[in-house]
């Protein structure tokens, strides 16, 4: 019985070590706070021919604070297709030395 426990413990530790050494973020790899990919939204939606402030945090999970091009692309797609909103404005992606300012028109990045 003791040998079974030892093997179980060994397998558990080997799993943790293999996962921890992985360079690709995933289960038990512990890549917390490794990347600085924060975002600030300044968006407006067109409602009855008027521009009103649009808050993407009404839809994004509260703790999803790490953004990159892919997540912004999906967010705008979701807003356009599933929320049905046409948003314009800027998204500031702060991931490098200097922040990138993305121009948004009709729920698409245009520059």
């Amino acid at each position, binding site marked *: 019985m003791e040998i079974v426990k030892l093997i179980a413990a060994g397998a558990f530790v080997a799993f943790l070590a293999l996962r921890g050494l992985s360079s690709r973020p995933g289960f038990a790899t512990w890549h917390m706070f*490794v990347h600085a990919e924060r975002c600030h939204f300044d968006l407006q939606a067109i409602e009855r021919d008027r521009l009103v402030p649009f808050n993407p945090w009404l839809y994004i999970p509260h*703790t999803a604070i790490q953004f990159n091009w892919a997540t912004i692309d999906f967010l705008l797609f979701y807003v356009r297709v599933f929320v049905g909103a046409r948003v314009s404005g800027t998204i500031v992606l702060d991931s490098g030395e200097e922040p990138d300012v993305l121009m948004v028109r009709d729920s698409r990045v245009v520059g």
Partner: protein
Amino acid sequence: MWLVESLASQFSDPVSSVPLCLFRVLFASACLLKFGVETRRGYFHYLDDGSYLHTHHVLSDGLPVSPAVYRYAYIGKFAAAALLLFGIAPQAMAAVLAIWFLLECAIYFKFHTCYFALLAAALAFSPDLGDAFTLSGLLGSQPLLPQYDPTSDGLAAALVVCVTASLYVFSARHKWRSPEFMSGRVIETTLRAIPAAGPQRRFADGIYSKRLVAYFAPADRSLARRRCRPFARLTVGLEAVLPLMLLFGPPLLVLVGVALHLSITMLFPITLAHFSLATVGSYVLFLDPGSVTAALRGLGLA
């Protein structure tokens, strides 16, 4: 050192199970705190038709479970955590929670959820989780700590120690290899972005004092990074050595870990409080089990 002795004896030498039971209580409390905060933030509806996460899964890899199954499981996890807290069928409840956290990782991946899944899985290895701090002890029909010294094989405690140690060591490794973290950029951009987005974000992350934000995230970015960099490096250094300090150092070194978690929790006090409670709670398993039990008896719990 108890972990080395347990390994050397192939987990045949009994060790006091009281610290493991204490960790069970702390971990279950952390689970309930996590569930409470997340429910307030709308997690119950995260897989509803048309939601952001539902859409993301449908368009990418498919839904891990149906929205109805998710909601039933969501309610069930509260019951599992409460039963684990009171030591009722604790091994089975730990297994149920492990399955829930794995499901949660598949739906909405977060590293602290991985950590909770692994802790729950480690606890599920022990049949001795209900030896102390049970509901009958709380109601007064039994002492919180039994008069005899209950023992376990130490396997589950060893696994919890390994999970927490791997969390620290590999987190330090990844941060060390990240120029963004080591330069202080992660701390700076986080302290800049979260308070700035505060009015838009529906739920509070915590109270960020203006002085704190002004000091660590001033408009001059090079100044901000100069101020954040020492804290980034200190974090990596502490994470790298903390497991060894806890295992081999005097018990007072626990305070170093507590200080580290206070600083991490400062970034997201509400979001990360449960994570810090579980992590710091696991420190009781790094210490000598006999000493922890004696200290608890000294507090008059027996």
